[in-house]
């Protein structure tokens, strides 16, 4: 049970049950879809980016498991008022945190800047679920690059 708690931390369960920023955004200027064909997880990410390249608003809609929903919920909160460059850095940090073996990561640097999102470190021990945690982030990357095709993490 303890290792399951590493994955399903209270914060993750809470965000999955009550996702924040869970709404459409009619005046978004960037929008991207994420889709995991094997899981059926689907999400649409909305961003409002100003002329200075700062993400002024972020939201999402869709359906997915607790991990992908919580990840999208927390990510959209976190990237608000961040520059595009900063959001890209966060993508890299998050990606490393959930995909690289923990022993390879420098404990003083792993997850730095991710704040509460560092709770996703537990996903690392559940290889089958990494794609759930990263779906929103890959969708963000596509939205920032203004790519038209849906992001996949399969």
């Amino acid at each position, binding site marked *: *049970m303890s*290792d*399951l*708690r590493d*994955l*399903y931390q209270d914060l993750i*369960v809470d965000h999955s*049950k009550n996702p924040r920023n869970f709404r459409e955004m009619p005046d978004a200027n960037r929008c991207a879809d994420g889709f995991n064909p*094997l*899981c*059926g*997880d*689907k999400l649409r990410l909305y961003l409002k980016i100003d002329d200075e390249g700062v993400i002024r608003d972020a939201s999402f809609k869709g*359906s*997915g*498991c*607790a*991990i992908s*929903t919580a990840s999208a919920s927390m990510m959209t909160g976190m990237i608000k008022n961040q520059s595009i460059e900063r959001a890209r850095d966060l993508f890299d940090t998050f990606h490393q945190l959930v995909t690289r073996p923990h022993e390879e990561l420098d404990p003083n640097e792993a997850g730095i800047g991710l704040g509460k999102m560092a709770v996703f470190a537990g996903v690392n021990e*559940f290889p*089958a*679920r990494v794609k*759930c945690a990263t779906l929103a982030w890959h969708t963000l990357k596509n939205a920032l690059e203004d790519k038209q095709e849906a992001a996949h993490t399969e």
Partner: protein
Amino acid sequence: MSASMSAVGLDVQALRRDFPSLDQQVHDKPLAYLDNAASAQTPLPVIDAIRDHYLRDRSNVHRGVHELSQRATNAYEKARVKVQRFLNAPSYEEIIWTRGTTEGVNLVASSWGRANVRAGDEVLISALEHHSNIVPWQMLCQQSGATLRVIPMNQAGELLQDEYERLLTERTKLVAVNHVSNALGTINPVREMIAKAHAVGAVVLIDGAQAIPHMAVDVRALDADFYAFSGHKIFGPTGIGALYGKKALLEAMPPYQGGGDMIASVTFEKTIYNDLPYKFEAGTPNIADAIGLGAAVDYVQKIGMDAIAAYEAELLSYATEKVAAIDGVRLIGTARHKASVLSFEVVGVHPHDVGTILDREGVAVRAGHHCAQPVMEFYGVAATTRASFAFYNTREEIDQLVGAIGKVKELFG
């Protein structure tokens, strides 16, 4: 009755000893393998048959005059006869080795379909089909200009027979349905459905992937035109399966693939095709796994398909009762006639989270759309959690499943 004997007389504990993979711990819990509809475990006699081939008889078939090739050919063709008898097919010529059910369906769609289906014709499938019994027919319809029609189902997951009769017309060239639904476990009344299709002159392909490990299948009694199944669902190896087809149909069909073994003679001007079944078996086949599948057929026949069906019916009814009694669990697929599949939803929890938690409790299930997205759409869910049983599963394993669902509720409560 000894403790390990079931009410219907299967000595499950003794049978489990033939499956060493069942006896292990995962995440420090005893394994409860309830993902048999995805792939079943393999017993020692099957592993031994494959091993014997590699240790003694390894060579090509139908080619060599040497002893090893003779032995390999004998074992390989003997396995074909085993499958023929298992299905009660009239002739070994009607058994074609394939990679699995998917290839069997594709063979019929490509070869029979292209020769017989034209613009204006209709191909009839059902709302319960696996993607492998949908997509090949969509491809055929796109190529030929024929129309794909779908037999609808009710909330329980049973095909609507009156709608089926209405959809059957002289335009219907082929009906393709599964014998047992992989997503819900519904047993379709295929014998009656075949008779109705024949009444309008349609040919019928039965996807037997989920029926073959659970019940006696008699293609003559069913009067099936084509019947496809996979070895790995019936405790055999992966990458091997068989397609039964009526001889008259197979003889009239063009080859599926060209190559060695499927020819009688080749010149640059003209090729004479080989006789059945070899006409449909181009290239060096999957010899060892065909032999393994033969051993798997022997194995289940020794237990007895009727004994297996009776035991599993008892197990499914126990599981259905226990899982349905859990507060906040909805069963998906409640047909009157079902085989060994229990699909369900823990309300408010995504099946992938359920699958992960069950895995950590030692319970292996499938969480997903089961390659049957139209079925999921019908029930308004993206995915379900599916427990699926074999004759080696026990009531204790179902209790372990029920306990693990309790953990899901604890974490998400």
